[in-house]
């Protein structure tokens, strides 16, 4: 896999089918629905619980705004990922072009996905720091690989942004 900036785009080339599939999973992985811990992580309280009025107002006014913000980011990413759909050569390596102006949406969606997966599987610090674990083994191993792969992509986009 190669990542480089070309004019107004970030180009991810030499994407093998496995990594392409992991990318396709970003929007679904970023959805915290049905997992309380993931919901709690994405929508964490703004203050200590003793600040009841503040926390109540936050839930009422700020949380819906944050939901919209996160949803817009994942929708943008889902649209970009349509490039990976409908090819006849399903086993061939693919190219994904991310418009430069979508970089923030990608950073957000990748972060949402990483946080949701990590919350669902309750990964320890040691596991999150283990970048060499094989994705083959269990669903947990695959999810950990997914978190690290998305982190790697974030780093690449950040490098281009920076």
């Amino acid at each position, binding site marked *: 896999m190669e990542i480089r900036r070309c004019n107004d785009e970030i180009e991810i080339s030499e994407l093998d089918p496995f990594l392409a599939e992991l990318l396709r999973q970003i929007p679904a992985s970023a959805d915290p629905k049905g997992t309380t811990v993931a919901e709690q992580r994405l929508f964490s309280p703004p203050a*200590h619980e003793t600040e009841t009025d503040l926390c109540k107002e936050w839930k009422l*006014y*700020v949380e819906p705004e944050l939901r919209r913000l996160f949803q817009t980011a994942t929708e943008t990413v889902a649209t970009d990922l349509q490039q990976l759909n409908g090819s006849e050569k399903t086993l061939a390596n693919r190219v994904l072009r991310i418009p430069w102006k979508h970089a923030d949406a990608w950073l957000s969606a990748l972060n*949402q996905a990483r946080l949701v997966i990590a919350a669902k599987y309750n*990964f320890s610090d040691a596991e999150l720091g283990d970048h060499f674990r094989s994705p083959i083994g269990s669903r947990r191993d695959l999810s950990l690989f997914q978190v690290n792969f998305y982190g790697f992509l974030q780093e690449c986009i950040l490098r281009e942004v920076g």
Partner: protein
Amino acid sequence: MSRMPRRECSRVAQKKQFKEPIGALWEKGGATTIERPAIEKETRSKEDLDLPWLVIVHNDPVNLMSYVTMVFQRVFGYPREKAERHMLEVHHKGRSVLWSGMRERAELYVQQLHGYLLLATLEKAA
């Protein structure tokens, strides 16, 4: 959530306006009045005098260090070195106070930080 600042700094300035300049009155030989000095009264709301609020970012093993640094630069406009210092404080000490001041602004900062998915809270300074 975002409310207008409650700061009520009312400046009451009372100035006596002369219809004619003082010089003209001397010329006429009439009585003159010394201009009353402007009285400026500033009132501050109770909240203004309150303790400042702190914006605190807490450690999170998932968020990348480079990402957190970028967020601090964007939200607070900190230079890279300062943003990195705060990021490292979060990483090593578990939390870092990023900003302190008025509550409304602190709320806004926390909202922005949550928008970037950082674990951030505000609390009153001890």
